[in-house]
């Protein structure tokens, strides 16, 4: 993947940069429903797409947003929808079935924190499906990964999701939107345009495993089996960044914009002589299990930490990767601003550095002042497990 030209950098908010990157990638349809901190992404698509020959619809609900996008995708257009994790919860039925329909959907999650990891990587929908999940650490990387998301979605005829957050949506960075050239992809001969109606060769874009009369139909069971064999093949798209892993005693796994904070803190700790390294999954699915498995085999490695702004979701994958070779400890936590939309107190280099050091020195995690009052207290009737 290579940028084909360079132009002067401009200061641009993340939401606009991601929308522009999508349009550069050929996106010509977007439908969404406003929701903080995703709203500005929708605003920029609404502003930019008409001039690019595209359409942006302010859908009446998230359900309709994903439905409209489904329709646009069925015509072969590059198309996307998005929301926060809350809005994406509403779209989950479509996410499941759109995967069975093999439509190259691109989804933007401008998440409220990192509590949508399960939703993004496991999904809240039914059945066996996976979305390729790309988690940029900043706006500049987001501009690349958005374009990659469209390419991978078409390459595999499988949805891909760009996992952003409040910071990526709202931070301004100096950047230029360069179109990236990817390998050629096959023509979308499966797309409907009406021209084959009445020919006896009309097409059906469907999740149901049915086909037009006379054509081979997989059936529901066959379609599910077909998708099941496709999923492992997509795992070759795994992307990961590592740093200071070779001689590390402590390895921290982090993704998205918090990973950039973690990397900064680790650079400081390295300068102070602490052997700490990091692994940053760029694809959350497929997850870089092998990278973690290999790192856990390192002669000096004693522990792996999972830093994420949730109650601990990615840690499941970190544990699978570590495969019991070294202990895996959770060093993140739920952290947003009071509204639940924005940046919380753990996303602070000083706080993160203290947590990394505590992990590294096998000490208890520092308490975040003010957070302890929100802890759940065990009720007497809950003390014993029911047998």
């Amino acid at each position, binding site marked *: 993947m290579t940028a084909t030209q360079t132009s002067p950098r401009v200061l641009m908010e993340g939401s606009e940069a991601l929308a522009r990157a999508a349009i550069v990638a050929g996106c010509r*349809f977007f439908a969404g429903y406003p929701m903080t901190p995703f709203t500005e992404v929708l605003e920029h698509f609404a502003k930019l797409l008409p001039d690019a020959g595209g359409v942006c619809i302010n859908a009446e609900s998230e359900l309709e*947003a994903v439905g409209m996008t489904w329709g646009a995708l069925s015509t072969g257009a590059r198309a996307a929808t998005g929301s926060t994790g809350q809005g994406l919860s509403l779209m989950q039925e479509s996410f499941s079935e759109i995967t069975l329909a093999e439509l190259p959907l691109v989804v933007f999650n401008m998440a409220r924190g990192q509590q949508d990891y399960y939703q993004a990587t496991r999904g809240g929908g039914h059945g066996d499906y996976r979305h390729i999940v790309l988690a940029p650490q900043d706006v500049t990387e987001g501009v690349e990964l958005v374009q990659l998301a469209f390419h991978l979605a078409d390459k595999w005829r499988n949805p891909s999701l760009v996992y952003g957050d409040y910071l990526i949506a709202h931070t301004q960075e100096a950047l230029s939107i360069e179109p990236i050239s990817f390998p050629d992809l096959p023509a979308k001969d499966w797309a409907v345009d009406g021209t084959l109606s009445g020919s006896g060769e009309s097409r*059906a874009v*469907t999740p149901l495993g049915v086909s037009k009369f006379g054509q081979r*139909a997989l059936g529901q069971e066959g379609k599910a089996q077909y998708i099941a064999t496709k999923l492992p093949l997509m795992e070759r798209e795994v992307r990961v960044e590592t740093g200071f892993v070779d001689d590390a005693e402590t390895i921290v796994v982090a993704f998205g914009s918090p990973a950039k904070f973690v990397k900064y803190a680790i650079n400081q700790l390295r300068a102070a002589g602490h052997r700490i390294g990091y692994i940053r999954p760029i694809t959350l699915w497929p997850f870089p299990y092998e990278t973690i498995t290999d790192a856990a085999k390192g002669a000096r490695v004693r522990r792996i930490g999972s830093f994420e702004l949730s109650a601990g979701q990615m840690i499941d994958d970190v544990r699978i990767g570590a495969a019991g070779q070294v202990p895996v400890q959770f060093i993140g936590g739920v952290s947003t601003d009071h509204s639940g939309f924005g940046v919380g107190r753990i996303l602070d280099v000083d706080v993160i550095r203290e947590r990394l050091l505590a992990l590294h020195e096998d000490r208890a995690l520092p308490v975040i002042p003010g957070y302890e009052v929100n802890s759940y207290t065990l009720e007497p009737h809950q003390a014993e497990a029911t047998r």
Partner: protein
Amino acid sequence: MTTTTPPPGPVLDTAHAPSVAARMVEAKKPDLLLTQEHHMCPGCGEPVAIRQFLETITQLDAVERAIGVAGIGCYTSFSGTMDVDLVQALHGRAPSVATGVKRMLPDALVFTLQGDGDMVNEGLQEVIHTAARGENVTCILLNNGVFGETGGHMTATTVLGQRTKNSIDGRDAEYHGYPILIGDLIAQLQGAAYVARGSVHNAGSVARTQKMFKRAFESQLAGEGFSFVEVLTMCPTGWFIPTAEGPDYMTETLGEVHIMGELKVDGKVHTTDELHAQNVQKQREVEEALAQGGLEKDHQRPI
């Protein structure tokens, strides 16, 4: 217990070939069906309605720009047998999918095929918003007042007193609420250009419904905005009645509440009362014409 021998049936003379060649069912198949076979129950009205709009697409010479979006119901099995480029939507979601298709392909003739459970229960907001946006698509509703595919359960269009598996003593307004007259509702929306409710319970209604499809598609092709054709269809299985009683049951129950006629033409909304008066008047004219010995002139009348 004694058994009786059934009376002998008519005896066919098979000693020589018939004087008129047999007509295969295939010969009566609309051009836009890949097979004459279907999986609907005997007495179902859906295949008749589907035939009407498929023939209309052919008559309008709009075949090679036709794209269907199917909902989920009994009629979904036609998504594989209609020779039309097709997108299969989720239950209730066809109008938004059709919106995406149409916005990318403005010259296509885009229609949805939905049932009352799909459109009026699960996806009510979809069709309402699509109509309100004046989305230039045609939504087709096959309304039989029950979830036929699940075996006869109450939908939002089930009329008061109608027995279903979950309104076993008849739909009771106090307990189950009132039916939604979706065509009437949509006609009120500014974005709706053409709204009509037909049926397929007899030959006259079939012909009348086909004209509604024609006007709806013509409206779309002229870019006038949202068009909507609701077709009352028989579901003897889901109504728990003998097959042959379907048409009469339909006119006496659904047909008395979901009044047939053109609910909106050229921006003018016609109320249920107006349509009912029109239908009564038309019925009187037909009876008078019959009394005078013929209906030929009636065939030339617009609907």
